[in-house]
């Protein structure tokens, strides 16, 4: 292929014009003629038997068409754990659990009536702490767990609150401890986090009398939604159409089932009229799923020369009332325990535990962010204990491509990335060897720190993707994909790849923004940073298929063997004889001879991707190949810590990732900066708080604070390493989730390395940091307060 090509260029995403002009339409903007509006009625108690539900007062509200309860849908649904009900059946499991759905003419009547549903509860003992919930005396939240349809790779323990028990063992960890010179042991905690996608969960659904359902939803993965809805409604998959227009953020929180099946049933119940349900922000916090909380206990052994020889960790996930997706998070948290390091002796247990709190689900980082929070801090502490530089201890333990094995026993191939180069680049970008800048005030501390990470997509071995390349009459290309686009820019990147396959400008390729299970190409899900890789490879294969058809035709027309022809520069050319050429537009809709005879027809290429390398993991040892690629990376920060208030300000953010191939540096930069900001926000501010009844007490953006413009670092530096992956699309790997994994650890490491204060709990909000300083280094705080109170300093502060 000649010409410059578009891969590697910073091309803005094709749909941004719609976004900046306000013409991108989301499910929230969708109304069908005659749409009714639905409102949830939610539980006021954390754990109780539903004795009765009286609908009389609600039904008397003018405009109310129907009120549904769990009796109308007495079945369980789900993807991995199969533990969910659509509305509470028999009992409620958290304060906020939906017990009824009111459907009315307009949102106002629906809300009015929802206030008038009378539910009588008989309270049951509740449990809110995941460690307590594992105790023998804890109330059981799911009594009939053995009846649930778990995917085969999960290990629930019926009769307990354990929804999944993942184990990973290699080597002999106790023997490893015997060989150790230093032991690091500690407990880490991670708070519940809200995805905070700005478009709240919402659905428009209509049932039809012919037995079909059409559903518009703000979802990441239309095909999984279709699967779950079809199974729940007991209809063939092709009778359910899931349509996804623009999506106002997902971050994992819209990956599984949301309200699609419920609203579809509601549409049927009201005589096949369309029904729309839009969650308020409070409902989104209190009645839908967020990222789980974690309690992690770790013990790690290091030899004098810095080698980690034993790593033992137990993750207890506070999975809340439903763990349909969280069982897989617990699995990923477990097998990612060892991160970018090779540790000979590992023992890891990762438990998803039910509590009477909000349900939990996947979130950007998917267990890896949580295990990273523990692992990277352990390494930082070991470095300090051993008197070793933070970089050196990592070099000693880093996975060596071509030689090492991951925690799950997978051989690390040479083409999967270069962790050593990533580390080196991180250090250079933050000027690791250089002198630290002075702090702006005597009571503040300037600190630099970093953390490394690795992640791959957590998907079942048979997860697949497909793509269709359709030529149009004017030789433009409709690229039909299944992967969603809610800001990652994946479809732009794949368009660039496709354009280059034919040597055409990228503008010639378009991906429709709406996904439709009846029309889009199949892809398992849009999660785990898999889209560019899996759907990109599928698209390249679709291009190959189309090229093959084009060359077949060209061979016939040009009377040359196929082997002597190639597709390049928007044409078919004879190799070595560039004057023998036919433009693509004369071939892709059939070739017309001068007398009108026509051969060939519209060219439609198709391709798919399914990894043949993934395996299930051994139930006892967790050994196997869980992911299709690993993206190595790291984050470094330069921060200023205010010792007096505990507030941390990030001044500079460095992100380095081995992306294989930077298909589009602008999209890459957007992900690396955006991922940093989300990671920083979770690191410094975000915490869903609960009262003693498990109620979310901060279901709003005032007290659940998300980073704003004022919190953003002045300096961003993003660098990328390119170690091409042989089976990736043009060598590329995914990046979306990875970009936030090591942010919190980097910040915490900066603090520990500089002032020796351990920050074990997320978020590191000012109060948490202040408490840690005052407990661990009271003399440091006293000294800071002393200088803070001095006049000279005050004068300086004013300048």
């Amino acid at each position, binding site marked *: 292929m000649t010409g410059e090509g578009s891969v590697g260029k910073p091309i803005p995403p094709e749909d941004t014009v719609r976004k900046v002009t306000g013409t991108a339409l989301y499910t929230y903007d969708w109304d069908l003629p005659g749409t009714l509006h639905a409102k949830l009625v939610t539980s006021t108690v954390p754990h109780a038997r539903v004795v009765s539900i009286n609908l009389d007062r609600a039904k008397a509200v003018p405009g109310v068409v129907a009120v549904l309860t769990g009796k109308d849908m007495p079945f369980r649904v789900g993807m991995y754990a199969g533990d969910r009900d659509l509305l509470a059946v028999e009992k409620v499991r958290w304060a906020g659990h939906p017990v009824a759905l009111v459907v009315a003419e307009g*949102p*106002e009547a629906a*809300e009015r009536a929802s*206030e008038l549903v009378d539910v009588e509860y008989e309270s049951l003992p509740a449990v809110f702490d995941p460690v307590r919930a594992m105790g023998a005396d804890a109330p059981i939240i799911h009594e009939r767990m053995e009846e649930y349809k778990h995917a085969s790779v999960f290990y629930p323990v019926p009769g307990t609150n354990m929804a999944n028990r993942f184990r990973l063992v290699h080597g002999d960890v106790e023997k490893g401890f015997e060989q150790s010179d230093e032991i690091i042991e500690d407990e880490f905690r991670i708070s519940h986090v809200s995805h905070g996608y700005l478009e709240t969960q919402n659905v428009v659904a209509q049932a039809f009398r012919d037995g079909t359902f059409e559903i518009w939803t703000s979802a990441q993965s239309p095909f999984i939604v279709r699967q779950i809805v079809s199974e729940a409604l007991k209809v063939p998959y092709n009778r359910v159409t899931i349509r996804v227009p623009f999506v106002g953020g997902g971050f994992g929180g819209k990956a599984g089932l949301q309200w699609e099946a419920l609203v579809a049933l509601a549409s049927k119940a009201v005589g096949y009229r369309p029904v729309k349900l*839009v969650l*308020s*922000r*409070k*409902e989104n*916090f*209190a009645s839908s799923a967020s990222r789980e909380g974690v309690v992690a206990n770790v013990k790690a052994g290091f030899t004098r020369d810095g080698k980690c020889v034993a790593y033992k960790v137990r993750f207890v996930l506070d999975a809340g009332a439903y763990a349909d997706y969280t069982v897989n998070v617990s699995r990923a948290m477990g097998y990612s325990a060892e991160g970018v390091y090779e540790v000979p002796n590992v023992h890891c247990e990762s438990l998803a535990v039910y509590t009477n709190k909000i349900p939990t689900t996947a979130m950007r980082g998917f267990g890896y962010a949580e295990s990273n929070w523990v692992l990277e801090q352990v390494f930082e502490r070991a470095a300090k204990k051993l008197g070793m530089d933070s970089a050196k201890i990592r070099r000693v333990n880093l996975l060596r491509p071509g030689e090492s094995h991951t925690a799950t026993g997978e051989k690390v191939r040479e083409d999967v990335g270069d962790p050593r180069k990533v580390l080196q680049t991180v250090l250079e970008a933050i000027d690791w060897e250089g002198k630290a800048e002075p702090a702006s005030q005597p009571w503040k501390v300037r600190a630099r720190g970093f953390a490394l990470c690795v992640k791959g997509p957590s998907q079942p071995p048979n997860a697949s993707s497909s793509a269709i390349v359709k030529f149009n009459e004017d030789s433009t290309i409709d690229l039909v994909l299944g992967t969603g686009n809610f800001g990652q820019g994946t479809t732009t990147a794949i368009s660039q790849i496709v354009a280059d396959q034919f040597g055409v400008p990228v503008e010639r390729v378009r991906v429709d923004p709406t996904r439709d299970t009846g029309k889009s190409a199949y892809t398992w899900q849009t999660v785990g940073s898999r889209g560019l890789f899996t759907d990109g490879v599928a698209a390249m294969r679709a291009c190959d298929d189309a090229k093959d058809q084009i060359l077949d035709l060209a061979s016939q027309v040009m009377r040359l063997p196929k082997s002597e022809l190639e597709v390049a520069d928007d044409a078919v050319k004879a190799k070595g004889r560039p004057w023998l050429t036919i433009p693509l537009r004369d071939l892709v809709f059939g070739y017309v001879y001068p007398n009108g005879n026509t051969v060939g027809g519209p060219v439609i290429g198709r391709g798919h991707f399914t990894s043949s390398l993934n395996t299930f993991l051994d139930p006892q040892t967790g050994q196997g190949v869980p992911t299709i690629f690993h993206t190595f990376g790291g984050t470094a920060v330069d921060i200023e810590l205010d010792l*007096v*208030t*505990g*507030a941390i300000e990030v001044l500079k953010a460095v992100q380095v990732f081995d992306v294989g191939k930077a298909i589009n540096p602008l999209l890459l930069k957007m992900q690396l900066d955006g991922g940093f900001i989300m990671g920083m926000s979770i690191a*410094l*501010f975000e915490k869903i*708080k609960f009262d003693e009844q498990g109620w979310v*007490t*901060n*279901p*709003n*953006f*005032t*007290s659940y*604070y998300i980073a704003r413009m004022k919190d953003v670092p002045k300096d961003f530096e993003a660098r990328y390493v390119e170690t091409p992956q042989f089976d990736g699309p043009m060598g590329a790997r995914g990046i979306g989730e990875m970009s936030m994994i090591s942010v919190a650890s980097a910040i915490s490491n900066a603090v520990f390395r500089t002032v020796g204060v351990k920050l074990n709990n997320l*978020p590191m*909000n*000012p*109060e948490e940091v*202040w*408490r840690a300083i*005052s407990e661990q280094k009271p003399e440091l705080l006293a000294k800071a*307060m002393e200088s*803070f*109170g*001095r*006049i000279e300093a*005050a004068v300086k*502060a*004013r300048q």
Partner: protein
Amino acid sequence: MSFGSPYVTLPDFTYHRPKSLDEVLALLKEHGDEAKLMGGGVGLIAFMKERLMSPTHVIDVKEVAELGQVRQVPGEGLRIGAAVSIAELLEGGDLKTEQAVLREALARVADPMIRRRATLVGNLCEAIPWVDSPPALMALDASVEVAGPEGRRSLLVSDFIRGPVDIDLGPNEMVTEVVVPESKGRRSAFEKFTGGSEFSLASVAVSVSNGGKKRAAKLVYGAVNSTPVRCPEAERLIEDGLSPTKVRRAAETASEKVECLDDVLATASYRKHLIKVITTQVLWRMM
């Protein structure tokens, strides 16, 4: 207390847009308990969405000319009408050095869009513990003018706020103005800490008066308890001027004496520490 909206629509009500104070009072007399006054609507609309308030009549006072003024009345002070938005008040330039504490507090209320709508009186009447204007007004000995069927009355802001979301105002009454008394030579300042929240975790309003021989200092803490709290012990320490030692002692005393509460934003012990920090900060600036 404002914890989030389960609902996105408002309860049914009839909207009134009177043009004069008499009309407002007549409407209040007619609808009393059933009515709520609306200035910027920021608090009212949020409260109505949460069903913390479900008035059947909403009386919008924005077009009442008498309430839309900021007046400098010699011998009395600054009179700020109930319909004056925070942005208008700040832009009007009436808050001079003497009222710096109020200006500083208001300049940092929420964001410019909220300040454009929200009124000082509305902010005050919400009486949410984390709101910043009440401590600032208390530091200035401000009072509110209340009009009702029984005529008019005036009371200090410190008496007006009875508890969290609880004010001394009858169902037929309304606050027409906030009055900030004149005080020559008074200096004042405001400080708050909001780390990881849009609301203050702790705030402090300070004023030091130097009217002839009579010196007086006020230190009022917001957001640390259910209502703003003064600290007389610390005030006494700074009455006669400030010095590095006095600043430190005042900060320590306030931290020790001011009672703090745990809530969704912070614990009492952190608030006690923050009191020390913000008192130090604010008093520096007064030196």
